[in-house]
């Protein structure tokens, strides 16, 4: 990994996730920081990234590196943690039972991922599918249910859903740009994770002795 990627690109990418993911566009635009619970989930994300070797911490901080390089590495890890928490925050619904369900779902999913100990490739696929599914559920399904009806039939259906679920599914209306910002934040986070300095894949490890022999020859 080049110094520019480690010192400039990755912190900028993750800080941009923090900025864009925190935007809540409504009558009054607000920047919302991740909650302490989401910071804990962010730690779990970093943990599974390290476990799967999608992030090799020894390539960011070690005694063989200079102090400046270690500070750069620390900045990458810190911004990755905050960006992970913010990405989860943007994908979790704003209120009610869906918020609680998504919060518990992400916790169980991350614990399950840690227990399964996938390799880098599988973890990246898993994160992409999870984030994609959460995005669709929040911004397509729940938004669709909660959107104010334009026709009498839709308004009647909304009232029916609202009544049948005692109002626990209905989300506060959000600005149209919110979904685009959330998509951008999640995609940028995954892009940043893809750029992280990673360890060798198991297949690479098998080939490593062979490549060393070739180099000797």
């Amino acid at each position, binding site marked *: 990994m080049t*110094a520019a990627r*480690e010192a400039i690109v990755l*912190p900028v990418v993750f*800080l941009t996730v*923090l900025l864009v993911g925190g935007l809540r566009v409504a009558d009054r635009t607000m*920047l919302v*920081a991740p909650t302490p619970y989401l910071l804990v989930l962010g730690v779990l994300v970093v943990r599974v990234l390290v476990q799967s070797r999608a992030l090799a911490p020894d390539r960011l901080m070690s005694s063989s590196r*200079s102090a*400046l*390089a270690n500070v750069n590495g620390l900045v990458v890890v810190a911004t990755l943690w905050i960006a992970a928490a913010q990405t989860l925050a943007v994908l979790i619904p704003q209120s009610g039972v869906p918020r609680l369900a998504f919060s518990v779902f992400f916790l169980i999913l991350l614990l399950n991922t840690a227990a399964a100990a996938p390799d880098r490739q599988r973890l990246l696929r898993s994160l992409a599918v999870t984030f994609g599914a959460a995005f669709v559920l929040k911004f397509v399904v729940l938004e669709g249910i909660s959107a104010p009806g334009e026709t009498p039939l839709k308004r009647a259906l909304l009232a029916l859903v609202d009544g049948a679920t005692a109002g626990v599914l209905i989300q506060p209306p959000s600005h149209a740009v919110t979904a685009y910002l959330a998509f951008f934040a999640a995609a940028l986070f995954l892009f940043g994770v893809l750029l992280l300095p990673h360890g060798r894949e198991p297949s690479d490890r098998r080939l490593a002795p062979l490549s060393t022999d070739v180099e000797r020859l």
Partner: protein
Amino acid sequence: MGETATRALGLCLALAYAALIGWLYARQPQTIAQVTGGLASVVGAYSVDDQAFADGLRFFRNDQFVEARLAFNRADPAVRDARTQFYVAYSYYREGWGRLYHDDRLYAEGLRAIDRAIALAPNGRLVVDDPNLGMHTAEELKSALEAGMRFEASDLNPMRVFRKRK
């Protein structure tokens, strides 16, 4: 560029970007003008538009409060000047003042404006030497706005119709 220079540049860039994001989270600006004005004030490069402020004062003294606020907003688009925010709050006070009742909505807006002015003033102390005003400090104005929003026994006193607007 050498590796050390790249790393040092990256660290400075990341810290500056993080500081900017922290500032945005703390200040919660609502418009681009507030972002640019706020950043300009951080480096001491922000100034109020004197012409727009003079227009605002003229409207204010003619009891054209809506026009005055428009001009004050033009003068201080980033909402960074304590004196301008004081006049904005004062315009809400005068517009909302009535002999029989006060307009709570306008007083609430005035309270928000005077809170902004106090937050912007050095050490929270704000004195405006304007002989046309009945109140010259932020504390007096805030107290008058808060009192106007409370319902008290004195509100039932018929003599209140003889009170004068400050």
